């Protein structure tokens, strides 16, 4: 097992290199550069050139990349071109905000979806199954930025129960309503897509397991239905966990729209800003860290799966 983990982590290195190289190249292939939005529109081209020199952006791309890589290898992500702040601080802060949102959203989604999916899987083919499938399809289909706006209109503008955007502005305190209230609408919005996907996966996994022979055997041995279900759920869990892990990874980098609507200072928002301003150090650092989170999340899910189901052997 230990050797397997080490091998998987080592395999992340070429992934990281590939991701950072593609990202670096894409930024330089697109028109525009970091200096354009750094300067007021009125600045002349000579100022642009002088500033490029001062920031070291006039050197060949390969050298810039190599230097960036060397610095990252020594733990230095550099400074944002747009605001001069250390990239690692920007990532820590925004990633912390996004992990909070993504973790809570997946937790909420999993709790709801697993119950719905299990009920639907057991009652496969009945109206309950169809109703749950309907809810799942709705969850996946509703554009979440639209849902975000609707929730804001209802709960913030009309009922004035919850804040419409932002954070409490300090380090998150899970015991303070002042802090928690800012999370509710974004978490509900973000959990809708995973609810749909996890419910559908759970439904098909449970319904497949329920038709297997060992279930018939358990029933024939006179086991009560709840214990039969316990065994069935244990067998249905691995694919559901795999999907959950992927959803967490997706939410980590893919909630740009929701973060924009709620002015939530997370990693999606940071990325979109970095793209618009071609802030290469921030872009590179964030994408690298997100890629690594994806790799680690998948590894964690794999390990958890094999713990749950010893049949999943790892070499």
């Amino acid at each position: 097992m230990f050797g397997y983990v080490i091998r998987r982590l080592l395999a992340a290195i070429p992934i990281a290199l590939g991701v950072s190289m593609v990202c670096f190249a894409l930024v330089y292939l697109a028109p525009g550069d970091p200096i354009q939005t750094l300067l007021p529109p009125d600045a002349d081209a000579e100022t642009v050139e002088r500033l490029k020199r001062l920031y070291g952006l006039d050197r060949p791309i390969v050298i810039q990349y190599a230097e960036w890589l060397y610095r990252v290898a020594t733990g230095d992500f550099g400074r944002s071109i747009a605001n001069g702040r250390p990239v690692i601080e920007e990532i820590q802060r925004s990633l912390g905000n996004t992990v909070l949102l993504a973790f809570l959203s997946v937790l909420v989604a999993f709790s709801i979806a697993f119950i719905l999916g299990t009920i639907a899987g057991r009652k496969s083919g009945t109206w309950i199954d169809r109703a749950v499938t309907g809810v799942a399809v709705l969850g996946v289909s509703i554009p979440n930025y639209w849902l975000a706006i609707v929730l804001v209109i209802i709960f913030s503008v009309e009922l004035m129960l919850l804040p419409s955007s932002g954070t409490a502005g300090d380090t998150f305190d899970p015991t303070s309503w002042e802090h928690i209230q800012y999370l509710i609408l974004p978490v509900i919005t973000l959990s809708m897509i995973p609810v749909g996907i996890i419910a559908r996966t759970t439904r098909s996994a449970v319904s497949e397991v329920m038709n297997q022979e060992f279930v018939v055997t358990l029933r024939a041995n006179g086991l009560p239905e709840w214990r039969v279900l316990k065994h069935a759920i244990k067998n249905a869990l691995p694919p559901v966990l795999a999907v959950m892990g992927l959803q967490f990874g997706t939410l980590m980098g893919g909630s740009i729209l929701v973060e924009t609507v709620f002015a939530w200072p997370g990693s999606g928002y940071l990325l979109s800003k970095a793209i618009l301003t071609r802030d290469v150090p921030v872009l590179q650092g964030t994408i690298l860290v997100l890629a690594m989170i994806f790799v680690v999340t998948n590894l964690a899910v794999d390990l958890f799966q094999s713990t749950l189901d010893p049949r999943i052997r790892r070499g």
Partner: protein
Amino acid sequence: MTTRRLASLCAGFALLATLAAPPAKAQETVLRVAMTAGDIPLTAGIPDQGFEGWRFVGYNLYDALVLWDLSRGDVAADIKPGLASSWAIDPNNNRRWIFNLRRDVKFHDGSPMTAADIVWNFQRFTQESAPQFNARQFAFARAYLGNYEGIEAVDDYTIAITTKQPDSLLPYNMSFLMMVSPRRSAEVGNDADAFARNPSGTGPYRFSRMVPGERLELVRNPDYWDRTRIPRHDRLILLPMPEASTRTAALLSGQVDWIEAPAPDAIPRLRSSRMQIVTAPYPHNWAYQLNFVDGPFADVRVRRAANHALNRADFREMLGGVALESFANLPPSAPYYGNPRRYEYDPARARALLREANCLPCRVTFAISTSGSGQMQPLPMNELVKSQLEAAGFQVTLQTMDWNALLQVGREGRERHQGVHGINISRSLQDPFNGMFRFVWSRQAAPAGSNWGHYRSAEMDALIDQALATFDPAARLALLTQVHEKMSEDAVMLWVVHDLNPRAMSPRVRGFVQAQSWFQDLTPITIAPR
């Protein structure tokens, strides 16, 4: 008996507690503002995030030698004394300006402001070898120091600035240069990022705290040198919210008191919730700079035809009334507006002009952006321009790009983009140089300046040189008016609308006067109790 004793003991304690408690603290009054910026503007001197940065951070934390008089809404804002109480051109040298500094100004860290501090700040902007030199401040300042040659401290409270050529407009440029505290900069080893986290200026607000990317909090500076502008609220909270619907929801739900630029279609809803909507003309235009060398706009008849082809009332309607039809470069409230040629909607005349210029259908290409500072609603507005121009005989291709890429096209000038016949970059027209000269002065031809399409006219150059060398305000005003009228005569741009810069605020916000400017004074605002 025991019960009674207990009760009296309790009563005694209660009385003691009441007496010992500090007197009820007066409620802190807070003004919360939602900005359109995606991040907190830079706090280390001259801000970024366009003029919004100047409006909310620059002029609140800092002062310049010269400030803008934002106390009136009925006239276009003009400059007034700032850190310099007066200025005059040297009677013996028309390239040397003398600025007399105030003697009662202190930085927020307590150090007094003297001529040496101003010289130190100019070195921060311009002198690469100085330890306090800052590349970003250099880049921001450069647009205002094109004619700057040098600075000297004449005595503790007098400085002299020399220019490369006579420049009667120099005081306007000085209004954009924020002065920071040398003492604080030294304390943080001249590290601009460390300074930005604990800045010290001379402005009406002091820095309180910042959560990067989320909020900036400033507090009243009770020792501000201009006693009439000490803020009438205790705290100012600035929140970046780039999405218009998010800002609107934040105002309606009571999370903020003030929002910049609500979406035009949200204005009726805001009004129905008793929110105050304020609009005012200010020096902004949404226009196209044209290519005077390559393609059809080299012919003045084609440029005039395009200006006659637009029905600007339609744009005003599309924008919910928060725009002013633009027939010339400046809004009519500008002091040097004059009596420019008026390009009324007349598609038949436009077609006749195109026929006369032998360009029918007349194929043109515009570079436009999907968003950007001051760009209003670029996509639907450009589509409307295209359909109206095409109805009058043009054939329009829109080259759409993101804001960053369009800025690059704008800076590089027509030479590198000969297939582009016009660029749609909204401009600020805050002063005569930025509002007119830079677009039509041959010395400003891109990439050296903002004359993107290389307009050249010996007559225009002569007028500009003369205006720069005229230090009598009345005589200069006449020359500036001539420049503006000639810009219209030559149809140097395709003008569409001036933004009316709507902002919405809660009914609790009192005492705000909307100046005809990009900048606004927040200090007189009071917040009524809930």
